[in-house]
């Protein structure tokens, strides 16, 4: 029974309360942001329509100079030549102007430009009628613009010798200001999504640590007491209903224990003073004590562990902070790019990304070994401190060398925190629920990535790339708030190191398993390679080159995290039911590979959207399946080295793809361009998937499993 589980909520009489709170939060969020958006629109209309009018006045004034020049040459207003070209120029230079017309004082159109007037639409008739009836324009234009059909008509009188000889009408889209507001609607939607996911995380934390966790402990204690065990009370204090219930429960247990102790001490006195009577009473007391176990002072126990919930929230905040820069990091490197002898600009851009993943790849197994026997909280804090410093200084880095240094320090902290969180979650879940623990880790990782990537683009659009990295340092600095209250024991104590326990020994042991080698080289590494090359390098740069804004780029990038966060659990169940992960791994490789080639057919934003969607879908089922496949093909190695060591080696080796990806992309992008590089990277991944299929067809896993021990015995 774990906190937050729907069954637990039902068992505690809190059925669907989480759903109700989230629905209420969503309704309130939508209402409040809609209200604020309405207020923004009002402010825009109030402040910007006069600005628009002033701009049109300036345009009119420019036209007046030319008109006056012609009138000064005694050319009548109705006899100007070349006005089509002239008005066409005005329209071309000012995109928001939909039409320009010059009428005589009676409103008859003398010259006109712009589709609304020239296309002969009903709107044109309406406008013509409006010009005819717009006496106000002849008298003064101070009354402001008039809405006609879907246009806002600004009328400016042409006066000469104190009389109006014509009127210039300039029309703009009536919703031009509204469009300026709605341009930001996707940003507001992004904020809403992130706010909702943040609310979900924090509500989950409060519900687990303040409601379901303690109530589960109350239910458990009630069961213990109802079996006659009065030796334990709950160590939980809170000034709310749950706290009061716990206090009442503890008082009840304490009262029974107090009466029991009182009876016991009185009985002792009587037994000492009058042994004959005392014996009869002692027999009666013994009968009672067989049914009820009491102590003078019941032991106070926590009863529930909130550390998993706190770790989950800490991980969420930490990943959220780090992923704020995902959507723009290559552009940031490009911005501060400084030439490095012997390296092209593309390679220099890829360098900090590769360096980051290289340090993560080295850090994770090293920290795993180093952490044994040490206090995990101190390591957590050290990792967070390194990340905060790295992010903050990366944001103010002056050149690529500084950026490399600070990104490496960030990676050191990131790798440390990530591996500690992962091992803590898996340890807390226990061996029987490791898969669920891994699923929890994955879902938190990708929902945080989703939030960070999406909001990172929005923030960077306003305050720039460097400052967004500084903001991410501040966010990462919030992580210790959740780490500090984690109940941590030192990580498992060091065991005597076996020969194969050292990484080198493990590699040798696993290198003799052809299927492990095939899965790692042809599925694990290519999956990481395509991630680093496409997702972290090519896609952001290509989307930027296509003219997408930073928030738009971030939103497209978010699709990957959405696919991973929401479809991974579904695929995981399907893979478990199917019991054969190989087809999923192969199909995942093929789909993610061929998905990249879509950009050859559509080298635009939609092509990238499709490619990222296919990559997210493919990796959602292939990454989960890879782990299951590794587990299936390494039964002997897992018995010898342990499952965690085998998976750890797989994870470490596959990171080579993350390191190589940006370099591969940098090499390809020069001769083949962004879309060509994407397609080639995709074909490499698809090719690897085909080779994997061939390998498993030639050497079926069953035969290898039998062959492996034989080979080892022969070597021995």
């Amino acid at each position, binding site marked *: 029974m774990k906190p937050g589980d729907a069954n637990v909520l039902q068992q505690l009489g809190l059925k669907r309360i989480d759903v109700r709170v989230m629905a209420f*939060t969503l309704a309130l969020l939508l209402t409040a942001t809609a209200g604020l958006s309405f207020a923004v629109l009002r402010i825009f209309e109030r402040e910007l329509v006069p600005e628009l009018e002033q701009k049109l006045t300036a345009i009119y004034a*420019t036209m007046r*100079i030319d008109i006056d020049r012609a009138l000064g040459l005694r050319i009548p207003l109705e006899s100007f030549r070349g006005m089509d070209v002239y008005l066409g120029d005005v329209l071309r230079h000012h995109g928001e102007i939909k039409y320009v017309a010059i009428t005589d004082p009676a409103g008859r159109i003398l010259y006109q430009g712009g589709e609304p007037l020239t296309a002969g639409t009903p709107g044109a008739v309406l406008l013509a009628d409006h010009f005819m009836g717009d006496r106000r324009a002849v008298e003064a234009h101070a009354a402001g613009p008039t809405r006609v059909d879907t246009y806002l008509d600004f009328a400016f009188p042409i006066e000469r010798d104190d009389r109006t000889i014509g009127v210039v009408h300039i029309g703009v889209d009536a919703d031009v200001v509204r469009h300026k507001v709605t341009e930001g609607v996707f940003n507001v939607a992004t904020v809403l999504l992130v706010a909702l996911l943040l*609310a979900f995380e*924090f509500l989950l934390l409060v519900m687990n640590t303040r409601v379901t966790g303690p109530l589960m402990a109350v239910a458990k204690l*009630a069961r213990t007491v*109802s079996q006659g065990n009065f030796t334990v009370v709950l160590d939980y204090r809170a*000034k709310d209903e749950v706290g009061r219930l716990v206090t009442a429960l503890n008082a009840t247990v304490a009262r029974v224990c107090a009466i029991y102790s009182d009876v016991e001490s009185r009985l002792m006195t009587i037994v000492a003073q009058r042994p004959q009577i005392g014996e009869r009473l002692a027999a009666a007391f013994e009968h009672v004590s067989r049914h009820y176990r009491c102590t003078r002072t019941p032991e106070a126990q926590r009863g529930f562990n909130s550390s998993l919930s706190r770790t989950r929230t800490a991980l969420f905040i930490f990943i959220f902070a780090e992923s704020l820069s995902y959507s723009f990091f290559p552009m940031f490197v490009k911005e501060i790019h400084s030439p490095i002898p012997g390296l092209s600009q593309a390679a220099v851009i890829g360098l900090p990304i590769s360096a980051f993943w290289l340090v993560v790849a080295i850090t994770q197994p090293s920290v795993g070994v180093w952490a044994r026997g040490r206090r995990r909280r101190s390591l957590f804090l050290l990792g967070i401190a390194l990340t905060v410093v790295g992010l903050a200084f990366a944001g103010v880095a002056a050149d690529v060398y500084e950026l490399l240094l600070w990104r490496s320090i960030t990676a050191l902290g990131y790798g440390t925190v990530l591996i500690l969180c992962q091992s803590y979650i898996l340890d807390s879940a226990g061996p029987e629920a490791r898969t669920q623990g891994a699923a929890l880790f994955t879902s938190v990782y990708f929902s945080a990535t989703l939030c960070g990537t999406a909001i990172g683009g929005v923030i960077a659009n306003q305050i720039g790339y460097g400052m967004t990295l500084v903001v991410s340092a501040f966010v990462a600095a919030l992580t210790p708030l959740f780490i500090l209250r984690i109940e941590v024991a030192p990580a498992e104590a060091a065991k005597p190191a076996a020969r194969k326990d050292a990484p080198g020994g493990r590699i040798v042991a696993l290198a003799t398993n052809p299927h492990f080698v095939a899965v790692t080289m042809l599925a694990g590494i290519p999956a990481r390679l395509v991630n680093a090359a496409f997702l972290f390098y090519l896609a952001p740069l290509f989307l930027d080159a296509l003219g997408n804004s930073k928030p738009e780029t971030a939103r497209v990038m978010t699709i990957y995290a959405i696919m991973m966060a929401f479809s991974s659990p579904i695929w995981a169940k399907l893979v478990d039911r199917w019991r054969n992960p190989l087809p999923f791994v192969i199909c995942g490789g093929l789909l993610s590979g061929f998905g990249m080639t879509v950009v050859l057919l559509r080298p635009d934003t939609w092509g990238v959207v499709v490619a990222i969607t296919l990559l997210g879908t493919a990796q959602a089922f292939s990454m989960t399946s890879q782990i299951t496949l590794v587990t299936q093909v390494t039964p002997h190695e897992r018995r010898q080295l342990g499952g965690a060591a085998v998976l750890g080696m797989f994870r470490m080796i596959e990171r080579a793809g993350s390191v190589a990806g940006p370099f591969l992309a940098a090499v390809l992008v020069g001769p083949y361009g962004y879309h060509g590089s994407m397609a080639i990277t995709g074909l490499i991944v698809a090719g690897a998937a085909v080779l994997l299929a061939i390998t498993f067809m030639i050497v079926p896993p069953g035969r290898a499993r039998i062959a492996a021990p034989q080979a080892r015995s022969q070597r021995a």
Partner: protein
Amino acid sequence: MQFSLFIKIATIVFTTLAFALGITAVLGYFKFRKTLIDFVQDRAVVSALSAQSAIESNLDLGLSLVMLRTLPDILGRVRSTDPSIQSMVVFELRRDDASIIYATDGRAAEEAVPPAWLAAQAHAEGPFWTLTEPDTVIVGVPLRNSFGQNVGGVTLLYSRAYVDDKLADAASQLAVWTAALLGASAVLSVIGSFFIFRPVQRRLAMLTRSLHRLDTGNIVRIGTEGNELESGIGHLEEKVGAALCDLEVLSNELARTEARA
């Protein structure tokens, strides 16, 4: 001080709302700022291009910039179309330097042109360039003669105070709206959370009261049916009741013995 569960939940809901409203307000402000600056800049560019067009048509007649006697008229006319124009300056580019020909703000002729203007004009990628100084926004356009040679430029100087005032006004309006919505959200968060948690609070309070009554010997059984929590407490009550009863019997017997003694 006693806190209710719903207050904790309301705090989370309100914090989320404050986050969303805060970011939405900031995004709205930045969007307004960008749009306002674009409008003001566009207006300045229109005025600058108008002056450019008028001056270049004179240059097309073969006149040099210093010979243009109509400059005050042209600039005065353009300036009159937009009251937010602080001043206008026409300068001439020479072989080695550049100097002001005419300015509406009393700058002396032959005064040297600020190097930043020349750098901005030299590096301009479009038909105009802009510079922002602490108090002024400057928009400039180059002047070309009939041979397409760059002979000088026209600059418009706008007071930043105009834009800053507008921005401050919009920011205060936005702040008022945000504060009002936050206030309303706070109230609604509390009310909503209260109603969502009321049944839970009632049940927990009922269980607590039941345990308190048990303490005072006034046992009101809540029953062993229902969810795991309630049935657990129900079973506990039964056991506690039985224990208290057994211990009371023993205690009474002890008391009688003690009295006899």
